Each structure stands twice: as structure tokens, then as C-alpha cells.
């Protein structure tokens, strides 16, 4: 039992393998496998063109941003179901604010969009962290509530977004030839990763999700951490709403509606545990790209919408099963 001191390991290769956790790499292997599959099957359908590959990244940008927020929430041992409808309300608030104040469209748009997201996050966080209501039920309720507000805000109409600065920075623009949505994705993932892995806050989020009592008795302010992760999720949903509004040059209540399941799947496949204590921002990025690639490839293969849904569901099932099985060993 006490023989496991750093005595000479059997071989350096085995020692290395023992330290690498295979589970963390499931998403990368899966990503590569599906990529190779499409590359071969769809070699004549334009899957491998630079244009198509860039397109995949552009289309997944909002989902990736949402996924980062969900990594924090899940790692803290909670769940957020409301970010999808928050995206729509944030986009609508941004579009309406810009329409109301065209002179200062850019700053009021950002303020309104991010503000709406942060507000939903704060409401979730206060109900969950301070009133100690279960996050599943709270965010299930706010999901419906916020979706309803989104619909009533505009009587189901879509609102155009015309400010060129806004649509450039959050949509079709580029810097040194790099599309702005790619820049947003890279910046958000980089910042998210550093906060998650390299700061005390990130460590406290993981401790809270792993063993809240242990976190509490070692002086971690668990309630504050839980409030923060919902603020992060809400704020990032707001940013995702801005990206949708910028790219589509319009805001509508349907934005983000179908992202909930995709984002949850992306995050879980990316190695984040559903019940807290462990996760990966980079994994969530790859998971999100994997979902986008799947979408893209299945369309290029000419599958009907219903067939796409079935195949995607099955692949997510397999991916989740593999990554979760590896985890429990």
C-alpha cells in the first residue's frame, strides 16, 4: 500500500501513459475521426475547402462562447438551461437599443446586449446561490420566462441591425484577414482557459463543484463562486447574442433556441463532468467545433433535416457514452 513512492517505474513510456488521462483526449480523437471521415466521403463535395472550414468556425462561434460559460457552471456543480433563451433576449435588447439611439448605436448595443445577459445571470445566481434553490429548476424556469419575454418584446418580429461598426465587429468584419468571429472565439477561449486553469477563482470553482463542504471549510466563499459562474454564463450568452445579431444583421426571438442541446453536448463531449469538479475550456471549444463540423458534413452529404437530427443524436450519444465511461473507469 505504501509501495507507491517514486520508485523506478517499469518503463518511462508506461509512466508517461499512466500520467496522461485518456479520457481527456476522447474529444480530440473523435474530432479527428469525424474530420477524416468527412474528408474522405465528402472529398468531392467541397468539405475540405478553406471556405467551408472557415465557415464551420464562423457558424460555431456563438455556441463556443456559450460553451465556455457552461464549463464554469457545470464545474461548479450547477447547470444552466437558460443561456439559449438569454441569447435571443440579449440580441433583441441590443437591436432595440441601437434602433432607439442610432447616434450612439455601437456602445448602447453592447451595453444593452451584455447587460441583459448579465441580468439574467445575476437573477439565476441570486436564486441559486443565496436562496439555495436547485439550479436545474431555477434555470428551467428562467429559460421559459426569458423566452417568453423575448417573444413579447417584439411581437415575434425580427429587428434589423444596421450599424456598420456593430455588424463589422460582431459579424462580417475582419482584422488582418482574420474574420472577427474567429478572433472573438480565440480571445474568449484563451481568456476562459486562463481563468479556468490559472487563477484562484478557477480553482475555487472546481473545488465548489467537487466538494462544496470542503471548499466551505477551507475558506472558499461558495455562494459567491456560484453567483459568479451564473454571471459568467449570462454575460457570455449576451456576447453570443451580439455575435448572432452582428452576423445575421438582425435579431429575432428564435436566436439561440436550438443551441441548448448542442452546447451541452459539446461541453460534455469536451471532457467537462456533468456533476462538477472537472472540465476543460479547450475541450469545450473542440466539442463545439465537432458539433459544427457534424452539422456541416451531414448537410453536405445531402441528408434530409430529419435524418440529420437522427444521425447527430446518435453520434452525440456515442460520444457522450465514450467520454463518460472513460471517466468513471
Amino acid at each position: 500500500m505504501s509501495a507507491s513512492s517514486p520508485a523506478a517505474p517499469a518503463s518511462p513510456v508506461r509512466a508517461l501513459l499512466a500520467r496522461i488521462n485518456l479520457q481527456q483526449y476522447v474529444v480530440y480523437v473523435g474530432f479527428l475521426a469525424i474530420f477524416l471521415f468527412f474528408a474522405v466521403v465528402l472529398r468531392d463535395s467541397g468539405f475540405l475547402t478553406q471556405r467551408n472550414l472557415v465557415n464551420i468556425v464562423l457558424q460555431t462561434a456563438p455556441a463556443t462562447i456559450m460553451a465556455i460559460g457552461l464549463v464554469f457552471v457545470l464545474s461548479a456543480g450547477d447547470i444552466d438551461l437558460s443561456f439559449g433563451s438569454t441569447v435571443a433576449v440579449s440580441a433583441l435588447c441590443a437591436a432595440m437599443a441601437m434602433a432607439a439611439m442610432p447616434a450612439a448605436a455601437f456602445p448602447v448595443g453592447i451595453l444593452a446586449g451584455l447587460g441583459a445577459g448579465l441580468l439574467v445571470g445575476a437573477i439565476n445566481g441570486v436564486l441559486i446561490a443565496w436562496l439555495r434553490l436547485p439550479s436545474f429548476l431555477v434555470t428551467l424556469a428562467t429559460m421559459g420566462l426569458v423566452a417568453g419575454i423575448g417573444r413579447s418584446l417584439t411581437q415575434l418580429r425580427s429587428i434589423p441591425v444596421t450599424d456598420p461598426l456593430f455588424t463589422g465587429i460582431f459579424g462580417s468584419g475582419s482584422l488582418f484577414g482574420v474574420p472577427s468571429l474567429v478572433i472573438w472565439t480565440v480571445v474568449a477561449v484563451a481568456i476562459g482557459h486562463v481563468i479556468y486553469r490559472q487563477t484562484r477563482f478557477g480553482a475555487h470553482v472546481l473545488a465548489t463543484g467537487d466538494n462544496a463542504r470542503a471548499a466551505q471549510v477551507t475558506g472558499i466563499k461558495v455562494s459567491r463562486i456560484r453567483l459568479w459562474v451564473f454571471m459568467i454564463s449570462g454575460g457570455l450568452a449576451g456576447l453570443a447574442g451580439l455575435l448572432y445579431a452582428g452576423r445575421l444583421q438582425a435579431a429575432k426571438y428564435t436566436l439561440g433556441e436550438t443551441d441548448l442541446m448542442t452546447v451541452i453536448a459539446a461541453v460534455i463531449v469536451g471532457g467537462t463532468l456533468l456533476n462538477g469538479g472537472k472540465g476543460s475550456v479547450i475541450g469545450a471549444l473542440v466539442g463545439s467545433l465537432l458539433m459544427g463540423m457534424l452539422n456541416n458534413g451531414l448537410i453536405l452529404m445531402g441528408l434530409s433535416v430529419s435524418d440529420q437530427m437522427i444521425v447527430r443524436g446518435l453520434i452525440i450519444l456515442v460520444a457522450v457514452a465514450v467520454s463518460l465511461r472513460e471517466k468513471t473507469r
Partner: protein
Amino acid sequence: MLDTASAPVLELSNIRKAFGGIVAIEDFSLDVRAGEVVALVGDNGAGKSTLIKIISGVYAPTSGAIRIDGQEVSMPNATKAREHGIEVVYQDLALVDQQPVYMNLFLGRELTKGPFRVLDRRQMIAETERLVTELDVRIPSAHATISDLSGGQRQGIAIARATHWARKLVLLDEPTAALGVAETAKVEKTVAALKSRDIGVLIISHSLDQVFRLSDRICVLRRGKQIGVRETAKTDKNEIVSMITGV
């Protein structure tokens, strides 16, 4: 020198704790001096764990005073108790299972470096390695994940964390209940090491053999009442057992 060494680090006077109408602790008074090991014994439900929770700031006493180094303190939470140099080894260890050993040793007190205050993993790992070697906790490495360790190793980590941060007092709640013979001996050695560092130790244990091996004094609780305190050298098991059971 002699005076400071024997001054009480912890003084509990007339501590009373009631939960609604139920009195868990009534009129409890005890001193723990620097470098002294005091054992708290009593049957299940005698109030031992409640007392530990009062000293560690989890519960506030209904009445009575807690003094640390002669200063009366109020301990509204666990953080405050830790600021006073009190560390606890909880029965459930309070470890974060999916994190490596070094993150657990520094849980809530992570070291950072640079203007952006990023985690200083290298420093935490180095200190962890030094500490586990010093305390002879045999773990594969400071990187090992807690969930991969044995019960004894996990206990070792929890005790190492407490001894590393304690400046005045360590509270141990059943530290060897789940351990084998060799591991128990190691924990007892660690307790003796705390003594030599002039840290007070308050230990809850169901094993009277262990209590007699380790402690300088024994305090007996029965149904929330303090039955008495005996110097270990001047008592025997029969007396303690009869104090515990009341027959």
C-alpha cells in the same frame, strides 16, 4: 520561557450550546496548552463533534467564551478560526477528490505569482513534496489525484494540510477510525511531531489505547455534560471507562 510554553493557546469557559430546546453542550470549560495533547472522549452523541464545530467556527456557542492566547475571540466562520491559527482534520477529511494533492494542501490558500496573480503551481508542488517527505506520507507524487489514493494516504494529506497551516491548535476528529495498524502508527507519530512544534492538539478518539498513548490529559463528556478532566499519567482505563459510561 516556561510560562509561555505552558500558557493555554485555547481556553473554553462555560461553553453552552443549545439547538432550539435541545442542549447539546452544557457548561463546558477546558484549556489546551501549547504543545499539549488533550483527548476528548465520550460515547456517541456525547457532544464531542459539536464541541469541535464550536472551536472551529462552524457553530457559534449559545453562551460562554472562547479565548485564544488569552484574547477573547468570536468565531463566526471557519475562515476566522483559521486566521487564529486553528486547523481541523474533519472526519470526512474535506478533500477535493478530483484535484491533485498539491491543490488540496493549498485549498482556499493557493499561491499565486506575477501581476496577474496566476497560480504558482511550481511553488505549491515544491512545498507539497517537502511536506509529504517530512511527514512521511507515502504518495506517488504531488500530482497524484486524491481519488486515486488509499484511505491512509488521504488521511495523511488531510493531516499534512492541517499541520502545515496550524500555528496554535489542531483539532483531530477520529483521525484513525478508518486506518490500518501501520497507518495509525504514522498518524500518531505526526501528532507527536505537532507537540514538539508547540502546537496544541485536541483529539477525538474512540480508541482508549490510542488516547492513553498520545494524550497528556483526557476530558470526558457524557450527554453534553463535562464529567471531568484527568491527567493521563494519573489515571487508568477503568476510571475513564466508568466516567464515559456513568457506571
